[in-house]
């Protein structure tokens, strides 16, 4: 086992999957010689050569469109979008084709590709470099959406994403890229897609979140638990689509209270979907309205204001207290 940060852990998954399976190719802007702007693709060009590690011309729709063709042609492309804000340029290909070819061909054809990109705020970057818009992808039937929360699960989820028969959008919380290290086993491990994890057990309230929000949420939960003697359960979704409703519903059925934390704007966000599932399947177990802590419905503010706009531990803690106090 080695202690790796998330960049190194994702890099390990790429190295091992490319080693294991000669059909895996990596493509994107500056992924080869430059090793990616965050160095996620470090060493790949040297190890696997230009035919499998492709520095493409600058065109996101073309990167994804050609990835679809590669996947149809028997390869397993892992395409990179340089930043979240530029991934939108690939949406016509994702929504129009990647997500639909299985249905269009009645299961005769599949698109086993991964589209990975850094996501979310917190690194004091320019406009379009700090976006949390997972619903744009999670809303599209036929696309899987995965958001890891640490080095070890990032590695294990990416392995599954690459091996998956369907297109997977793999969003990497960039604020976590170098935030901390974790033991990551050398031996390849895979985590199933579409499954959440209970990362802290409790009985008084269920906190549901994912990605970079997990860590500040855990901090808030521990603080509130210490202050009040409560025990908050924390669920890390890991996959936004398909969504593991069962884990969330089971937890809330036991605790009776829930708070959902998302970085993205509030309206039509993942929290709304989670609350709807609770409404469908656990309403009679709820002892308080389900609260959500989210971004606001404003154009992602530049970094001068981002700290004020991205939910922090204090905001989460206030929502926890409020929900615990509800009678």
């Amino acid at each position, binding site marked *: 086992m080695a202690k790796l940060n998330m960049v190194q852990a994702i890099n390990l998954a790429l190295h091992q999957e490319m080693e294991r399976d000669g059909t895996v190719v990596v493509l994107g*802007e*500056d992924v*080869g*010689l*430059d*090793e990616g*702007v965050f160095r996620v693709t470090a060493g790949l060009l040297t190890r696997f050569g230009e035919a499998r590690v492709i*520095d493409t*011309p*600058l*065109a996101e*729709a*073309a990167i994804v469109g050609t990835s679809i063709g590669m996947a149809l042609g028997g390869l397993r492309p892992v395409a990179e979008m340089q930043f979240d*804000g*530029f991934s939108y*340029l690939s949406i016509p290909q994702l929504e129009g084709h990647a997500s639909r070819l299985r249905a269009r061909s009645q299961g005769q054809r599949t698109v086993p590709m991964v589209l990975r990109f850094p996501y979310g705020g917190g690194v*004091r*970057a*320019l*406009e*379009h470099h700090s976006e949390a818009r997972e619903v744009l992808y999670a809303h599209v039937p036929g696309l899987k959406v995965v958001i890891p929360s640490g080095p070890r699960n990032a590695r294990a989820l990416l392995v599954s994403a690459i091996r998956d028969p369907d297109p997977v959008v793999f969003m990497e919380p960039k604020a976590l890229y170098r935030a901390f290290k974790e033991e990551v086993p050398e031996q390849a491990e895979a985590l199933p897609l579409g499954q959440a994890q209970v990362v802290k057990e409790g009985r008084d309230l269920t906190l549901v979140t994912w990605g970079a929000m997990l860590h500040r949420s855990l901090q808030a939960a521990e603080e509130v638990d210490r202050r009040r003697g409560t025990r908050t359960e924390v669920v890390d979704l890991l996959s936004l689509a398909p969504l593991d409703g069962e884990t969330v519903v089971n937890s809330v059925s036991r605790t009776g209270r829930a708070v959902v934390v998302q970085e993205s704007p*509030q309206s039509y966000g993942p929290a709304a979907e989670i609350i709807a599932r609770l409404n469908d399947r656990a309403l009679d177990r709820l002892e308080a309205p389900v609260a959500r802590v989210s971004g*606001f*419905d*404003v*154009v992602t*503010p*530049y*970094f*001068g*204001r*981002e*700290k*004020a*706009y991205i939910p*922090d531990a*204090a*905001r989460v803690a*206030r929502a926890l207290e409020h929900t615990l106090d509800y009678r």
Partner: protein
Amino acid sequence: MPLSDLASFQVQRLQVLDQDGKLDQSLEPDLTRAQKLALYRAMLLAREGDQKAIKLQRQGRIGTFGPSTGQEAASTAPAFAMTERDWFVGAFRELGGWLARGMPLENFLWFHNGWEEGSVFPSLGRTLPVNIIVGSQTLHAVGLAYAMKLRGEQDSAVVAFFGDGATSQGDFHEALNFASVWQAPVVFICQNNQWAISLPVGKQTHSRTLAQKAIAYDMPGIQVDGNDALAMFRATQEALARAKAGGGPTLIEAVTYRLMMHTTSDDPTKYRTEAEVQEWWQRDPLKRFRLYLGAQGLLDEAGHAALEAEVKAEVEAAVARFEARRDFKPDAPFDHVFGTPHPELEGQRKTFLRELAQAGGPEARHG
């Protein structure tokens, strides 16, 4: 039957001042002494401002930005060929052009310190703010040009800037096609600075020139020495005149070089050699224009020293104004979602302000 020739094309290159400042008099544009000096001063301001901004970034006083050192002529000279009636549609590496269009340097610094307020300046007029999504602005430029035409504004045209990397985007090709079909009054200026982050232009395209991309759309395309301010002025002036006379769009490939890193987060030693960079320093647009001004008797050593001191003081004054500003309203993002307030969004604003107050006020929360 033998094949017959339908059409043949050529691609031309324009240079007025060579890299040693030697002038081809037959091509010299018609500029007054004052205009020439003003153009040089504007390029020097862009250079000094850019170098200062790199220092500020290194000291943590601003965030990431893309330096434009070495590319001053390619955006400043076109701005001098434009009037206030023309639209300036930039990307993100046109500091010289923006300053020449009246953007104060402190605005650039606010913008790059994470404040949207940087995009607001008194002489905004027909100058669009920074456009980061590579290539997308070329389409906006065509729409603007169409609007000018429809409104009968015959004294207005649009100048759009973008990089060599942008020519790979569908948007670029779609923009050229629309502009050509509509015969829209727009001038496309591609700053071919040889690199798109780590990708050299030779891997961006298999075409020998970027200018030739105009041929497919049947519009004039010309390669210009982009480090030659006189050539850039001349080419833009001609293209604007043609556009305003109803002659449609033009593509100008400005051959230049990014002497600095892609952005302050980039390490260019990973992908290019120092020898290449040094070679391009020999073609520095400022050095060349200064030699020309010297030869014309417009700027001697003493005059240059005085000008440099003046420009440096101007940069320092801008930095002082940049640092003095504190009035960034925390809830400003709520002001600019829509033009009309909506109760739901106003409710969110209240929540935001309440949370902010609980966190100890804006100072505590600004990052």
